[in-house]
């Protein structure tokens, strides 16, 4: 198929490799090595091994989710008409746009891979800066999946309800602040 020509394009391959294993990759690798060494020295052999097993467990859990989340975001990028998104949460969308963005953040499933990939879709669709901040703040503070999977079992249902109720106003406040800040926002990867 002609559409897959990019797979043989050496420039494209090189840029993907650079994205994956560029200089910052080695920064992350160094971070893992340094913290591992410190953990071994300061906390001892057993704590180090336990943390390492915990890490492996986490990686095997997270990897399939990330693959699915990135697939979803790639499909959404092409399937959802981006001009319609900008009408919903564009710069003219007012308080309603912030509310829509907050609800969207609250119900976005999956971890940060899906939330940030969707945020990139919002950015590429010309969403308003307030709506983008409201969306990701709502995902972080109100995300239903996190409340159900983490708050309830770890902290108890009362605390979970309390935290959710208190957090309801936060994304709107953050979005309103973002709209008023005199800062430049240049979006990466704008939609074609």
């Amino acid at each position, binding site marked *: 198929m002609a559409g897959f020509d990019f797979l043989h394009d050496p420039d494209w391959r090189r840029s993907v490799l650079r994205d994956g294993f560029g200089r910052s990759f080695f920064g992350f690798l160094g971070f893992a090595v340094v913290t*591992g060494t*410190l953990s071994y020295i300061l906390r001892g052999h057993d704590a180090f091994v336990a943390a390492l097993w915990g*890490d492996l467990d986490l990686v095997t859990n997270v990897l399939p989710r990330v693959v699915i*989340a990135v697939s979803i975001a790639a499909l959404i990028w092409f399937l959802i008409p981006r001009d319609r998104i900008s009408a919903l949460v564009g710069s003219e969308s007012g308080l309603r746009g912030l509310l829509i963005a907050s609800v969207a953040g609250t119900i976005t499933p999956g971890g940060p*891979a*899906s939330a940030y990939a969707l945020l990139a879709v919002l950015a590429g669709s010309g969403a308003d800066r307030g709506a983008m901040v409201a969306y990701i703040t709502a995902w972080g503070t109100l995300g239903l999946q996190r409340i159900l999977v*983490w708050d309830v079992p770890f*902290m108890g249902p009362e605390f979970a309800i309390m*935290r959710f109720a208190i957090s309801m106003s936060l994304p709107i406040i953050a979005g309103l602040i973002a709209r008023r800040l005199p800062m430049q926002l240049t979006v990466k990867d704008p939609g074609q």
Partner: protein
Amino acid sequence: MSIGLAALLGLLVILVIVAVVRQQDAAPVVKRFAEQFAKLVPRMLCALVGAGFVATLIPKQLIAGLLGPDAGLLALPVAAAAGLMVPSGPVISFAIAAVFAKAGASTPALITFLTSWSIFAAHRILIFELPLVGASFFRLRIASVAVIPFIAGVLAMLVGLITTFGQAAP
């Protein structure tokens, strides 16, 4: 299988069906997938491993001692700073929150800690926000949400004056 994974899979299946029905060309989708995957996954694996080690290094008991009801308003900045220090996912941050709660941390302090972690977690900024959305958005967002953990903590304190509902039961 967890709720989250099931919801993601369901969403993916729906989108694939929509794509097939609409005869969406697969090539650009695969291209965007490969580009975003490369931006995220190699660094993410290192960050996950490092974050697990950081969790062993955070002085949890020491911080917990500063978050009790006697600490009053001082508990909020301490809790917000502690939230900043956890560069990892919910597995670790909630385990730490439970340690704080068992050591007697107040509800406003716990809410401030979790709110701070949920919006500032450094691993998320480095792995996802900067590569996918860019540095200018990151700066705008940080300036916009810097006060948010404190607003959450003060709201929780005000609610605490009226009712005892909302205590953590780890």
